[in-house]
């Protein structure tokens, strides 16, 4: 007999309300006051940074203010995100020590992402889990995920891009791109996808998307979802915590000592030009994001996107970059005429060493 979980759908809320709610639901889960829950959420247009990120380094604040985009911070980790009503958020609240819950984090990510994959399948979309914590369709990211734990309880959060506005996304987030030009926009587009792009006119209404996703999670987690509402205690705590989540103290916090240099390098290999844009935090020796374009031919094309996923938040040390790129090439059937792992490694290393813009 499948365990019963609550299905909670709080509709469209502001960034602060959703963030406050995440914290409240997690605390209540930890204290045993709330049941295991699958939560669907949507946002009024906003940008979010990951818990440890610095707003100043990740968000184009002026643009956000001018265009009425709320700015807030998640309780979970990961990177900056643009949200609007067209995206669906899903969250799982449960405990790490539940029977059947994977013990290792990497298995946990996969476990829940498979729920997302199963839901997408019901919509006719062939998606896959891509380590560390993405869901991709043909190599292009459709969902990002992250989590936060409190005691034995945790929340695992995921996004589902249904229909997104790439221009707004690129304008409000600080991305590893020197210039927002047509080429950059196109390169960025190839890295993400959404349901509208895949299903076109056949894209179902949001309610049907939620239904399919719910079924996917039921299947993989072997649970039975029962629609529910916020409890009295949850409502009470939400009202109490909301002012703090709306405050500058929470949003801007004390995120000291971070670095976010953008560096771009053009590297000439035998097989063509490799252009690498990276965002690095040098003191932290962290390669935050890598963007690889160029006029080489990669078979399959998605291999470059997969390489970027592997290198995201990896070590910026020369020996580690080389090791990571080489082991990626070894583990995949990468076919890029006249371009090899060493070429990519050198290009990225050069980009890291390059004098960059600090912003």
């Amino acid at each position, binding site marked *: 007999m499948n365990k019963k979980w609550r299905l909670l759908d709080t509709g469209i809320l502001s960034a602060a309300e959703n963030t406050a709610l995440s914290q409240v639901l997690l605390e209540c889960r930890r204290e045993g006051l709330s049941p295991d829950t699958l939560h669907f959420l949507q946002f009024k247009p906003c940008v979010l940074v*990951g*818990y*440890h990120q610095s707003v100043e380094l990740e968000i184009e604040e002026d643009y956000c203010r001018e265009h009425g985009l709320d700015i807030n911070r998640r*309780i*979970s*980790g*990961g*990177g900056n995100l643009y949200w609007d009503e067209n995206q669906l958020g899903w969250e799982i609240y449960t405990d790490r020590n539940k029977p*059947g819950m*994977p*013990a*290792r*984090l*990497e*298995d946990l*990510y*996969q*476990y829940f992402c498979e729920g997302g994959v199963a839901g997408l399948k019901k919509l006719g979309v062939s998606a896959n889990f891509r380590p*560390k*914590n993405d869901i991709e369709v043909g190599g292009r990211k459709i969902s*990002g*995920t*992250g*989590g*936060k*734990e*409190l*005691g034995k309880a945790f929340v695992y959060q995921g996004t589902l891009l249904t229909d997104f506005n790439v221009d707004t996304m690129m304008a409000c987030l600080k991305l590893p791109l020197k210039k927002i030009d047509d080429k950059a926009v196109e390169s960025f587009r190839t890295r993400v996808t959404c349901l509208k792009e895949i299903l076109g006119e056949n894209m179902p209404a949001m309610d049907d998307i939620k239904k399919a996703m719910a079924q996917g999670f039921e299947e993989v987690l072997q649970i039975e979802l029962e629609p529910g509402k916020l409890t009295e205690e949850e409502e009470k705590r939400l009202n109490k915590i909301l002012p703090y989540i709306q405050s500058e103290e929470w949003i801007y916090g004390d995120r*000291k*000592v971070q670095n976010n240099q953008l560096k771009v390098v053009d590297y000439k290999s035998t097989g063509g030009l490799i252009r690498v844009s990276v965002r690095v935090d040098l*003191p*932290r*020796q*962290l390669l935050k994001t890598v963007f690889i374009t160029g006029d080489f031919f990669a078979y399959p094309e998605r291999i470059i996107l997969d390489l970027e996923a592997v290198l995201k*938040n*990896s*070590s910026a040390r020369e020996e580690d970059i080389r090791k990571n790129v080489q082991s990626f090439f070894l583990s995949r059937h990468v076919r890029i005429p006249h371009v090899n792992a060493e070429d990519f490694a050198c290009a990225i290393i050069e980009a890291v060493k390059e004098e960059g813009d600090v912003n």
Partner: protein
Amino acid sequence: MKINNYEFPDDLLYNKESYWLRRIGNRVQVGLSDYGQREIGDVLYLELGKEGQTIQQGEEFGSIEAGKWVGSLQAPISGTIAVINEELLVNPKPINENSYKNGWLYEIDMADNTQLNDMMDAEKYSRWVEKQVWLEAQEGEKHE
């Protein structure tokens, strides 16, 4: 003590949350054990609490992020935070690469040193880790 390729220095104490403790008089230096740092993964960011902050044994404070997962630090012992390892706020790599030396997280002036009796020595801790590793391997196979 070495087990399953993990190292657990014999002169330290350990708890089930995989923190190590190094006693320095009435002060204790705290860090993540070799097993603990591997379980968490490559630490990207952390918050260590503040000097002068009082914490209770088992209390969650600060934060630690690896791979988009944010967890809390958990106090192995009650007391007042005397020093935090500020270098880790800039570059947390020592937590993974040098967990017993440069990777120390903070030092705490103990409120009750009898709490150290709750800790495990290296031998006991390594046997505990052996169990966890085996159980995790089983779980890993189930989810393959």
